[in-house]
């Protein structure tokens, strides 16, 4: 049978950067094909070429046996190629139905088309077990449901080849399971699925074939049943990954952070955090495990001074943090930094960096008042410090004057971590340090955090990845629904038990 998609010697360069070099492989019709690789390995570029965003410098694209020049995403859609982006392309305040119709309205009057489309959507939903109400407004839907809308959109436009870019990055475990059920159903119906991910577990679970990319080239292509996680990881980074990073035995010092009876309500009186109590001591990593959206983000915001709690006490080295008597948190993060609290925020691009600032400018972000000489920036010192950080944390490229928005996610994260570590904090708040970061970088970030712990820094880590929690933490606090549902030592690590606590099964 002829393959659904065939890449033949595809090359694409952006200026001096060779994003794809001589990429050739084919994707069988009716299969689930995984494409994995580190950030910057060229997977997104390759998919963008397939979807008509970019044009290859050389090479051919063969779709269903015929060579095609895809000049725009419109032409890709005509060829039956659909793409579900990592960041959804949905109009938040419109209904599912209107979002699906957008671009295919086909006339001035909407009512007739709307009735038709709604019927067709319901039919698709039943056939593919997609649990979506066509009349729901997007902003009221969960992330998982929004993703189903994106998939629905592609099927409605009769996509036969579906590209999914990091589809599970924002999903809960249950949502991932149901997404995979949907994908399996697609496969049964003869559709072809291209799954871009960096999660090896997912590749092993659902794909038939895997193509591994490294530095713009195909580093390996294997049938999933003939390979293993370890082999794939090795192909991806080109060297074996250490399963467990070495660390000294858990020997905590004095309590650094103590939280008692912390409450947070939003403007509508909804309880976001309830009765939170936890302690982090010097020289230990306490991980907060939980499905995202269960109060972890709010807790980190409070502890970093970005948000005021409704009530409760938080002490740092025995002294209460200065929440009292404030009506807003404007400027409070600066005070917290001065008290020795470092913060790697979980949403890097929203909070952690300014995309349009250079790497060098971003290395002083938050610490801009500490690099002053005679009232003005001490650029010599800043440049020296920046060069040192780029070297020490292996940021690539080592160009201090490039805009940080042009760096890959992993390298942006290295800059953030380098900046926060170099301020020598006593307490380090770390939110999702390896989200959207490739395996090679994950290891280097984990090493840095463990080194910091061994130096006696108290670290509070929020992670939704249990593997990360296991690799780093000394103690684990599980949160669900804005409450702490359980606490355990790393020696008691037990996936099932943590899973139950994450699901809200209380300790009592």
């Amino acid at each position, binding site marked *: 049978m002829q393959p659904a998609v065939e890449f033949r010697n595809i090359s694409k360069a952006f200026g001096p950067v060779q*994003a794809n070099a001589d990429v050739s492989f084919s994707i069988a019709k009716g299969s689930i094909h995984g494409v994995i690789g580190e950030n910057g390995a060229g997977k997104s570029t390759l998919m963008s070429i397939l979807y008509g965003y970019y044009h290859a410098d050389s090479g051919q694209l063969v779709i269903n046996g015929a060579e095609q020049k895809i000049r725009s995403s419109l032409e890709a859609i005509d060829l039956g190629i659909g793409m579900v982006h990592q960041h959804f392309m949905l109009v938040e305040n419109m209904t599912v139905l209107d979002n699906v119709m957008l671009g295919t309205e086909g006339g001035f009057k909407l009512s007739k088309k709307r009735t038709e489309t709604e019927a067709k959507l319901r039919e698709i939903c039943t056939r593919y077990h997609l649990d979506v109400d066509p009349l729901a407004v997007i902003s009221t839907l969960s992330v998982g449901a929004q993703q189903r809308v994106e998939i629905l959109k592609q099927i409605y436009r009769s996509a036969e080849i579906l590209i999914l870019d990091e589809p599970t990055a924002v999903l809960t475990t249950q949502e991932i399971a149901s997404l995979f059920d949907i994908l399996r159903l697609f496969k049964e119906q003869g559709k072809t699925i291209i799954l871009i991910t960096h999660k090896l577990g997912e590749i092993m679970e659902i794909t038939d074939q895997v193509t591994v990319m490294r530095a713009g080239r195909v580093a390996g292509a294997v049938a999933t049943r003939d390979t293993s996680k370890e082999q794939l990881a090795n192909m991806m980074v080109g060297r074996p990954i250490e399963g467990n990073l070495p660390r000294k035995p858990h020997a905590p010092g004095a309590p650094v952070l103590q939280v008692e009876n912390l409450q947070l309500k939003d403007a509508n009186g909804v309880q976001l955090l309830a009765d939170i109590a936890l302690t982090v001591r010097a020289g230990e990593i306490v991980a907060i495990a939980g499905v995202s959206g269960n109060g972890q983000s709010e807790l980190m915001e409070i502890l970093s001074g970005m948000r005021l709690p409704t009530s409760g006490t938080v002490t740092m080295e025995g002294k209460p943090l200065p929440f009292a008597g404030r009506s807003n948190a404007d400027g409070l*993060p600066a*005070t917290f*930094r001065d008290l020795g609290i470092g913060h790697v925020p979980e949403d890097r691009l*929203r909070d*952690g960096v300014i995309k349009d600032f250079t790497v060098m400018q971003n290395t002083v*972000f938050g610490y801009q008042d500490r690099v002053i000489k005679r009232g*003005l920036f001490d650029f010599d010192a800043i440049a020296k410090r920046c060069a040192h950080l780029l070297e020490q944390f292996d940021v690539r490229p080592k160009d201090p004057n490039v805009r940080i928005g042009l760096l890959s996610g992993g390298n942006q994260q290295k800059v953030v971590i380098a900046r926060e570590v170099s301020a020598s904090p006593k307490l380090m708040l770390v939110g999702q340090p390896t989200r959207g970061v490739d395996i090679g970088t994950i290891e280097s970030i984990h090493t840095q955090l463990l080194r910091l712990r061994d130096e006696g820094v108290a670290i509070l880590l929020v992670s939704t990845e249990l593997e990360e929690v296991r690799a780093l933490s000394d103690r684990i606090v599980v949160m669900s629904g804005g409450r702490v549902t359980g606490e355990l030592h790393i020696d008691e690590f037990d996936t099932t038990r943590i899973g139950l606590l994450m699901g809200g099964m209380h300790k009592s």
Partner: protein
Amino acid sequence: MKTTELPRWASGFVLPVLNLLSALLVSALVIHLLGESPVESLQILFNSAVVNPEGLSYTLFYASTFVFTGLAVSIAMKAGLFNIGAEGQMYLGGLGLTLAMLSFDSTLSAWLLIPLAIVASALFGAGWAFIPGYLQAKRGSHVVVTTIMFNFIAAGLMNYLILKMVPEGDQNPASRVFDDAAMIPQLSTWLPFFGENTPLNLAFFLALIALVIYWVAVSRSSWGYKVQATGLNAHAAHYAGVRISRTIIVTMLISGGLAGLAAVNSILGSTHYLSLNFPAGAGFIGIAIALMGRQHPVGILLSAVLFGALIQGGFDLSLEKPNIPQETFIFIQGLIILFCGAMENMYAPAVLKLINATRRKG
């Protein structure tokens, strides 16, 4: 890397020049349609605005005002605030300056009086920008809307106040003329080259100093860093410990103060009295200058001189060519805003292609 972008020399220099040339090209077409020769018109314009020393003096005089309004709009833009209200703030700046003059020009010496008037103009301009800034910072009222409204309020208020200031028996809607002692020296006093009694005055140097201070504050101080962070990403600025509402209010105060200072050149350096509608659109031209100069001090200076030259040259052009009305300048100004502001990146893809093509060859 997925995105490729223009190098700084291209986005900062090549694009503005291309945009400007496009605006001039369309202007030439219109002049042609009006039945005049574009080449000859350009010659007249250039001669009268730059070559002729007296004309050059006027060009730089206008430019001095525009530097201040351009800086006012630029600093606000750096903080992500679109201050449309430089016109009204300059108007109020003129009021502050005039009140200082009317109260003290017979008692204080020029050495005290002139600095006092300068400070008063800045304070009044800043005061007029404070309310929009405060409302933006604390209440989220968009500064575009409030500053536009404050222009109208300023116009009404000043109308009322100036009519109260008209000396008895005078027909002109303006305050009395200030005492001669309080005049800022004109450059022609020392440099006869500029022609007799042309209005270019020491405020020109004040404008240059303001440009330098602006450059230092924006690119070398942590304050400017925080202002830009706020403008680019307020979430991240909050994370970095920037006090967002204070930054917004302070930036608006400085913006309004700069707009107020524009009155120093027009009143203290030239007319010497407060007259109805004296800013004459300089505040709005400041928006064009900030956009065209990309909020960079060198760009602001060059754009301010360009607009000064267009006013001066356009005026002479309309005298010499009866087919070309005086309003042509406003038309050209509009085209420049259209090409440099609204369509500033029109040529970016083409320039990028060209650069990539030459690099591949080279």
